[in-house]
């Protein structure tokens, strides 16, 4: 199993303000599989992705990635797994504004020491970015920026892609376009995908679907 999440718990705040965001969440994901996490705002979708993506640590429970328990890793270990194993796509794109499209596309691959110019070219072509490589993010539309983010996340050939509301900032047509590209690339590269989304139609396009309500999966 590529990913195993076991009774994951996470709370925020202190004392009376303390709020449990995840309450014993468990799930599994096989290599190449895709899973949509749906739920209302504040249901814990992003928190779950942050924990799986090693951006945050759980209060309780375990996460295993490629058979390795990752919830107990130290800061350096988490950074290394993020760099080498996981790809991240955010709702706000989070591109480096001072780097060109080409620079952004290659960024994670360079960091991971897996820079493959041919693969970056392929990604750029398939994402329809070949004509924009020397442009800066602010010169692109939202859809184009998100395509750069998808390309950057896949450039290091991760085994798992985590996408947090990747189409949340895009119009319907662009959303469908970006999502289709992302799924296609994941399928071709054998990359597993976990995507948090509000959109039922987007969720339908993934192989599995799980719904979060008040921190519990159903």
């Amino acid at each position, binding site marked *: 199993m590529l990913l195993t999440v076991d009774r994951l718990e996470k709370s925020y705040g202190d004392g009376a303000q303390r709020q449990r965001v995840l309450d014993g969440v468990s799930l599994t994901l096989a290599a190449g599989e895709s899973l949509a996490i749906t739920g209302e705002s504040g249901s814990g979708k992003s928190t779950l992705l942050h924990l799986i993506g090693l951006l945050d640590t759980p209060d309780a429970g375990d996460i295993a990635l490629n058979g390795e328990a990752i919830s107990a890793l130290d800061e350096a270990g988490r950074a290394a797994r*993020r760099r080498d194993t996981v790809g991240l796509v955010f709702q706000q794109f989070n591109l480096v504004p001072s780097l060109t499209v080409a620079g952004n596309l290659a*960024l994670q691959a360079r960091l991971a020491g897996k820079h493959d110019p041919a693969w970056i070219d392929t990604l750029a072509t398939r994402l329809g970015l070949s004509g924009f490589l020397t442009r800066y993010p602010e010169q692109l539309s939202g859809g184009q920026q998100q395509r750069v983010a998808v390309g950057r996340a896949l450039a290091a050939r991760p085994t798992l892609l985590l996408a947090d509301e990747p189409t949340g900032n895009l119009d319907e047509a662009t959303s469908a376009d970006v999502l289709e590209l992302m799924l296609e690339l994941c399928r071709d590269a054998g990359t597993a995908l976990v995507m948090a989304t509000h959109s039922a139609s987007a969720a339908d396009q993934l192989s599995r679907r799980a719904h979060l309500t008040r921190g519990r999966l159903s």
Partner: protein
Amino acid sequence: MTTTALIALLSHWRRKPGQLATLIIGLGLATALWTSVQAINAEARASYDEASATLGGGSVLVLTARDGRIPLSRWALLRRDGWAASPIIEGEYAIDGARFLLRGVEPLSGLGNGTAIPEDQAIGLAFLTAPGVLLAAPETAELLRAAPESARSSLPPVRVSAAVPRGEIITDIAVAARLLERGDTVDRILVDTRERTGRTPLTELVPALERNTGSANGEVAQLTGSFHLNLTAFGFLSFAVGLFIVYAAIGLAFEQRRATLRTLRALGTPVSSIIAALIIEALALALLAGAIGVILGYVVASALLPGVAATLRGLYGASVAGELAIRPQWWLSGFAIAVLGALAATALSIRRAATLPLLAAAQPRAWAMASARRFVQQAIAALVLLAVAALIPHFFSGIIAGFAMLAALLFGAALILPPALALALRLIQRLARGPIAEWFLADTRQQLPGLSLALMALMLALATNIGVGTMVSSFRLTFEGWLDQRLAAELYVTTRDETQSAQVHEWLEPRTEAVLPIWSAESEIAGRSGEVFGVVDHATYRDNWPLLIATDTAWDEVAAGNGILVNEQAWRSLGLALGDPVRLGTQPSMTLVGVYTDYGNPNAQAIIGLDALLTRYDSEVSRLRYGLRLPPGDTPALAQALRAEFDLPANGVIDQAQVKAFSMSVFERTFAVTAALNVLTLSVAAFAMFASLATLASMRLPQLAPVWALGLSRASLARLELIRAGVLALMTWLIALPTGLLLAWVLLAVVNVEAFGWRLPIHLFPLDWLILAVLAILAAFIAALLPARALIKRPPREFLQIFAQER
């Protein structure tokens, strides 16, 4: 990985070239001012060392006699015993009104590194055999050659040597003995204990001679030390002002790259790689700015050095070359301070990067808001510093304590500025009526954290300007008044020799109201080398001489030959009190009856009755000069008659106005460097203001867009931005004013006493302060002009995007 992170971070500067320029210019300017001061100090020290090496230093012992003269036989004794010994004769030699330091050396026994012959001159037969050679700097040689034939006839030929300090002449000891009429005595014997020691210990061989180690020019180094410390302090202050720019620019860059840093971390870049990248970036910027700063510093120092050389010559009699050499100690120090400054300015960014939460929401103005929270801590730190400044004079003394007090005062005042402005704005806000005024004041308060560093830099520059300006103007006013008192005689005459002096004296007696001899002898005054003047009993002195303190019968006692007056610097440094005995050389003591001000003279000086001077010093008295009292209207005619009657030197007859003009020109030159550094510091502060306003303007759109949407035009907003800059500059000036006046007091009452030996009364110049206020507001307007213009030109689309981006 670090390389990739570094590339991502550096790419920020490619997109923000203006910000990069601000950073480089800020650090470059700061380094330039520091480097220029270091270059000047290094050049001066090298000149002192050169002069010191000419006389022997390091392992060289200097033998002197208590009465000032060593029989030549003592040197022969030392040589015969096997000691590496070399005699020196030294004295002031006047030719055609110009005075030179004449130094006679014995070239064959010249010591190792301390050889008395400059390196560019081979010892030839001409130097050793009659008539000998005079070695002098090009300028000195020119003066010597320009002297009248009658004056030059007794001199050997002059040979130019660039290695001889200006105003000095080096020649064979026999020539010097003849010109200075020393007979068979010398002033010092240098003994190099490392090169060769004799059979008999010096204590047995020459027990009567005093043995001194260290440089013979130590006194000059000591005297000028405070001047150089003064310059260094100014250089450091300028650097600190520049550093504010760097700190602000780096802090802003961090905020703008906060999202990038978070993205890099999210993509798996370890914190250590990000820190390494930030440090490499800071070092690269420091080296670039350092190189620019060192080059600029060289230019500034080259421009200032002639003025500094003139100051050191005028104030301390120290010779400093007028041309700047490229010495590793100052350019390396320039790079070092640039690197240290950049790292210090980056330290906070590095700490923030290390603790940056991975998932915190982006807050473009988080930096500013956090700064606002720091105001309370800042105010506490400022109060502690101000308390330290107030307490220092009660527990410590000396020039270092003076500068420590200045530093605590200035940085305390700088730190208290933002909290004080915030408090003032809060109070004004309560009185504000109307929505625009309320918004304006609230928005100004919100902007304060972002502008605080630039305002602190402006405050430091303004306070320095007020403080140093008050000090210089007070000095000028006091000095002018002092010159009026001191230069009471209408004409000053210098004769060629004593025969002519006697003839001139006799000729003048019936033609003037009084002939006041200005006769003097070099002598130790209570153990300090100095000059003793003899005065006749005349109303000119009783009515005009600027006495600081004196007994009621001071002039009577001086006239009677019992009392002595000393100058302020001798009085302060020797810690004398009225009634104390003051020993003159080996002569019996005289009673201190008064202290007079004596600006511009670094050495001890005393006044006794003329008869007492002649009795005590007799043949050592220089009897060449006179001050003449006569009706002012008769001055030109008498001067003309004097010149016609006697073959006087070129500057043999000078009227009061000429002396005053010369003295004032020396004064102005003395403070030319201070004025230049003052202007440069103010310029750096104005640039800091511009840099901060320009960079903040790019982050201000979210604050301005809603007000624009509510009906304020872009032009109105731009006008308000200009007014804001002016108001903040005015408020900063209001705090700089008391700070500057305190600074002036410390300079006049503490630093000057330590550095120059005299204390000056403080004079206030409100008009100068008002002019400075106008200049500060004008500088702020100019700094705000470009950002305001950019605001007017900003397309409405950009304002609308702010609302589109809000989710």
